[in-house]
């Protein structure tokens, strides 16, 4: 197998108040993976992200990016290549115009001004908010701020993008916009990690799921494996996705032959029914 893009080994991190927030976390992340990071509140997901990005320094443990171990000297490399879209856009937005905001990351990368301007335009076009360029973030709505905060990271052209609970506090239309963006980013080969409490979304979107519980990774596998594992679900305070429940119920009641197809979305479900009906 190819070299993981991000290799994390034996990570420990404590905030200095009781139990460690990360208690021996090891995980390999490969380029182009779509990973859902799930687990109850306070399980260590956000701490893990901040460590992966180099904002928090682990008490001990090792992080390598594309095979190069991260030390104090090349920390910037980590921040440049791994971007985080924070849960609360207000916590992330620092500048007072959208242009300056989206340009903040590229400016910190010390890119020439022309390139920064170009990247800002690209990122805003990508998020479909080019007309916001001269607006002030404080007059934008929640969904618009979220788009700006995503454009922030797109402008940095990170290979790995982490979304910390992106669906929280978004209305259905904006949640849909988010999924479109995720699909687009995925098709461009970006590695994406998303922490979420939305099990339906995780089941539908992710190729791999990592479950955190009390600072440890307690499960790592395909969403189907994870959500069929009652023990893990119980430990991590999770519920089964609706699509999985519906499928199992149909099978249980002999309304459906168990073909182990496990549709993940309504569309896939429809397709499955059509295939079965055509038999």
């Amino acid at each position, binding site marked *: 197998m190819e070299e993981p893009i991000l290799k994390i080994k034996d990570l420990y991190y404590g905030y200095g108040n009781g139990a460690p927030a990360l208690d021996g976390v090891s995980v390999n992340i490969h380029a182009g993976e779509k990973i859902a990071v799930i687990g109850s509140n306070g399980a260590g997901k956000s701490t893990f992200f901040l460590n992966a990005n180099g904002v*928090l320094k682990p008490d001990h443990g090792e992080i390598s990016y594309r095979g190069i171990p991260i030390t104090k000297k090349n920390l910037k490399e980590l921040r440049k290549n791994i971007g985080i879209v924070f849960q609360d856009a207000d916590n992330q937005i620092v500048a007072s115009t959208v242009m300056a905001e989206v340009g903040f990351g590229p400016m910190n990368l010390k890119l020439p001004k022309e390139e920064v301007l170009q990247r800002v335009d690209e990122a805003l076009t990508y998020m479909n908010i080019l007309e916001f360029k001269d607006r002030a973030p*404080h007059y934008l709505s929640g969904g618009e701020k979220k788009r700006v905060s995503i454009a922030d990271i797109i402008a940095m052209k990170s290979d790995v993008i982490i979304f910390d609970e992106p669906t929280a506090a978004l209305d259905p239309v904006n949640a849909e916009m988010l999924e479109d963006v995720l699909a687009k980013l995925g098709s461009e080969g970006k590695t994406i990690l998303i922490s979420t409490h939305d099990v339906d979304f995780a089941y539908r979107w992710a190729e791999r799921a990592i479950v955190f519980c009390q600072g440890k990774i307690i499960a790592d596998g395909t969403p189907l494996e994870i959500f069929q594992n009652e023990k893990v679900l119980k430990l991590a305070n999770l519920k089964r996705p609706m699509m999985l429940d519906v499928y199992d119920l149909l099978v249980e009641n002999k309304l459906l032959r168990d073909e182990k197809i496990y549709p993940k979305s309504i569309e896939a479900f429809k397709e499955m029914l059509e295939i079965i009906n055509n038999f």
Partner: protein
Amino acid sequence: MENIIKSYLDEMISSKVPQEVHMHSNAIKPHHHHKIDHKHGEGSSIDFYAYNSKIRHWNPTFKVLLSVLTLLLCIVLNNHYVSVAVIIAMTYLTVVKGGLPLRAYISVLMIPITFILLGTVTIGIDFSSEPIGQYNLNLGFCYVFTSQAKLWAMAFLILKVFGAISAMEMMALSTPSSEIIGVLRKAHVPKLIVELMYIIYRYIFILMDVHTKMKNAAESRLGFCDFKTSCSTFGNIASNMLIVSLKKATAYYQAMEARGYDGDLVFLEQTGSVKVSQLVFTTGFLAGLILLWYLTN
């Protein structure tokens, strides 16, 4: 009591206006700031007007310099003809060129009216044990007096103050604070101060949001039903706001670091260049002010 609740409601609504209007921000909708005596919640509206000004794209350094030079001339020349000329020119720029509704403009100019009236009257009248001056009033133990000359001086002072305010508001109502800070940076104000100003400006609006939410929550539980309750609610909201904001401060710093911030805050700025015609008009205007002063002195 009714007053308190009403005024809190007013403030609540007014602090919300910009967010509600942003959908159609190209046209500034008339909203309820127009009562001339309305004094609060104006903070966000000046900022809001600045973002929507039609002369916002003018080079900020040019606007700041024009405003400051006009302001200085208005004060240094200390001449009522100059004051009137400044008021007319600045109102023209702000209202006609900038497209700000006249009523909104007047309501902004009227914000310091109490101070102006109180301050000016204090200057205009004097006390004496003798009935001197052209107009005087016996208060029993002394006389309050004033004179024609003093009243004129008061009027001229008011003109000068309004001239100065209109010059400053020309800048404030057409240049968002972030751009003004950018001008300060170019003027070599210490980097630390400029950085602090940028972040403070951003945080002001975050805290205002936090405050609106907390106040609404308190209001919904009758937190402002009488004076004593109002005081304790106000205090509780204020202390809570500090706690929330300090907790957030760490998160903000982490978010900045996550995007490669390493202690050197630089924002991307893109400003239009100054047109020759603008420079010509400005020079002409400033020279005209001096000439006016020279001719009338």
